């Protein structure tokens, strides 16, 4: 059964092995949006979503409860993005890398949101997006990231502050 309904999802995901093509089609698009929001780069997002699934398939045995696959994929994706951001931060000190796509620059609100999220600490951005964009509760985010709930709370609070400052700065920069 390949229905998109939650029930169908649960039934199909509690079998012996996951139907990864189905999982990819089912959750790939929303993960793509999640990753894109964090990277502000379509090509990178496409690449990192594939990375996410390759890692997930490799470690599928570590998923005890197949009904939790969505949260699990987000967790892997968040880690993949944070790794990418760390690597990118290192590479940015090295000239002539050349292969990186230039981040988008647009006056579009969505683009500004992406840029602002990209400019704040990755851990804060992940907490914000998982909470506000993906709709996970604070406790779900805490479980997903193996953090105390208080830490998630402070990340969200600090993230909001950082995001606001960054967004307004970008907005002013464009206006100027």
């Amino acid at each position, binding site marked *: 059964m390949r229905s998109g309904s939650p029930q169908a999802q649960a039934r199909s995901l509690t079998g012996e092995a996951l139907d*990864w*093509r189905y999982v*990819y089609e089912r959750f*790939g*698009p*929303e993960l*793509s*949006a*999640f990753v*894109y*929001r964090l990277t502000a780069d*379509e090509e990178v*997002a*496409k690449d990192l*979503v*594939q*990375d996410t*699934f*390759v*890692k997930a*398939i*490799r*470690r599928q*045995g*570590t998923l*005890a409860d197949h009904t939790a696959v969505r949260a699990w994929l987000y967790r892997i994706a*968040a*880690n993949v993005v*944070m*790794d990418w951001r*760390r690597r990118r931060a290192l590479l940015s000190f090295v000239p002539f890398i050349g292969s990186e796509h230039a981040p988008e620059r647009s006056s579009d*609100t*969505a683009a500004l*949101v*992406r840029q602002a999220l990209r400019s704040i*600490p*990755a*851990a*804060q951005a992940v907490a*914000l*997006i998982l909470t*506000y*964009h993906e709709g996970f509760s604070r406790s779900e985010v*805490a479980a997903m*990231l*193996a*953090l*105390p709930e*208080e*830490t998630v*709370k*402070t*990340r969200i*609070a*600090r993230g*909001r502050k950082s*995001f*606001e400052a960054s*967004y*307004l700065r970008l907005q002013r920069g464009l206006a100027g």
Partner: protein
Amino acid sequence: MKEEDLDRLLRSRERRPPLASFTEVERRLARGRLWPLVPAMAVVGAIVIGLIAGLALPDLRQRVAQQTASPSPATEAVGICARTRQRVLGMTALVDRAGRVAVKRMSAQDFMDAPTGAFPVQVTWRSPGSTFLCVVAVAGELRQPSGQVEPAPPKWVVFVAVAGSDDPIGSQFSSSGDWPTYFDALPDRRGEPYPGDVVEIVDPQTLRVKLWSPMLSQEFGNPATVRADKFTAITPSAPTIAATGVKVGDRVDVSFEREGRDPTSGAYPLAILQLRGVPPVAANSGVLEVDGWRFTVSVVRDPAYGPKPSAGAWAVSEVAGVGVRCAWTRAGPDAGAVVDQWGIPERVASSAGYSGRTGASGDRQSGIPEGAVRGNVATMVCGLRDSAGAHGVAIDLTIPSVGHDASIRLSRWSGSLRPPQCPGQLPQLTVAHPPPPGDQPGTGAASAEEAFRRAYPAITEFTMFPFGTDQPTRDPQVIKQGPAWIVTGTDTFIAQYIGPSGLNSWSAHPAKFVRCMDPPSRPSPTPTISPTDCSAVVQAVVPPTATLYPTRTAAEVTGGLKNDPYFRRTLEDIAGVRQDANPLRDAGVPRCAIEALTTGDPVFVRRYPSDAGVWYVPVNYGDRQVLLVTVGRNEGGLGASGGSIGGGGDPGGAFPPMIRAKAMQLAGTSTDAAVLAELVFARAYESGPERVAWRIVRASGAVFYVFPGYPGAGADGLLLPESEVSLGS
């Protein structure tokens, strides 16, 4: 920006960029694994194998670091075990398919306290309460480690690593059951903040905290600077850190972010700050300020303490179930370099490697040290030494008994050593003698003080105590019966006389207190030679300075001793040639029967890595060892008899205290056998007294030390990796 506008922006839907086809994912899968093999784990041998932290690990860490994409959790301090989990799952040489994986973080103390059955932890922790471990359990399709002897493949494995460092402590493979049941009972402290001590309040929102965990200290600073803001969850609730009333020396639990570090102050943003404060001083605690240092000492009742090796040397205690916590803080600025001091008054050791110590605060928990107990009171010293000298407290602890709790009395300690007090017992001393000049009747000094000044003219400041008292005096009338205990700095000496007191018979010797001991039972002598026969014995003439002879080999030592006047003098004392009563006189040896005394095989203990060291030679009467004499060997291969161990009925102990074969068996494993063994002088845990230990080299090159007879360590002694041992004087 209004809150609702901010919410709206954050909730705004993101478009979904086009996905690659799933075929592309499959293609990537087919190209190979993301994490290459970790061949170093092939060293994991039999079905149950303990890996000592640090062994072959630099290589493993290097390979893993080079070959794996760094996985997630560098973003949060508390997610430190996620890295260990990823490393374990990346061990494709061992883990084919992980069916179930679980991770927990806990202190080493938690792990030791848990019923982990036969888990092969061979490591002892200096501070198990503040050493954090990551414990990873994996069930699924696992490969047999090389050397596995069980017919069935393992169904689960538990890996234990030091949190943050990924140093494997041990692993346990099993084909019994589908899951390690004990794992479920282990505590999980991943969500808990880390403990530390406040060492400075920088401003109302910024603290410098000495984290208890050495790994975290290494990563985030020692101390780490942390900063609160309005988002920090502060307990007890307060608008700022300062408003909680926190003080230097207080214990706090903190959780902070790696990211967002303030570039100017270097402060990490705090997520959680929980003020634990300093526990109120209980009846079995004491507080004393000494020279601007505040010492808080309390009795710790914990069954882990006592003479049991499994708990590690930190818990070795002369009194079962009792330990002592000694914390100190400095109100002023950090004093910089200080050296931790701990021990009994007669033997205080500098334990510079002790982890819970800075120039502003220190916190140690230890068992009652060896030699501290006299009757129902244990006396020990806790302190520190800085450029101005030693500061600390002497702790008199009344040992708890049925119906009576422990009590503590503190007094000032300033580095001066007190003379050994052994009511009803005898002090056992290690005396280096004979120290020329003045060890013959008529050739010595007229008093104890004169003997000491003559032997050590460079030492001008010293304190003398008549033996058996702690009242210092240099009055010859008070000391006339001898001996006298002499203290100068951390060195101790003994002055005693030979023959009638006062007739130029006093001499002084370096002496270290070892322990109090019961008087040896005195076997009734059956002299076959009358005392008058001693007149026929030609006594050795001891020159003022020793003549060195070759001592490079055992044969040279045995040969050299025959003509060594100091050794001859020792034999004369054993046989009571000059006086029937003297410290070395063995009542079981017929008086004057020097020729009946023989020497056993010399055993060499090296002062590694130099060629110098000490030979230990048993002196026997028949098949009974009477004492051990020591013969030095300098780097040039020369030496002379320099002292003795035992005497007066004490045989000095078997030497070596453990045979080579057993030491090699203890320090080797089935996959990494011991190949070399030699006796050396070493200090366990970089502190405490120097001891004779077996230095074992495994086939892999890894070095371990076995300390036979280590207090509380049982018949197998104490096994330590090289990193936990210091060499040299």
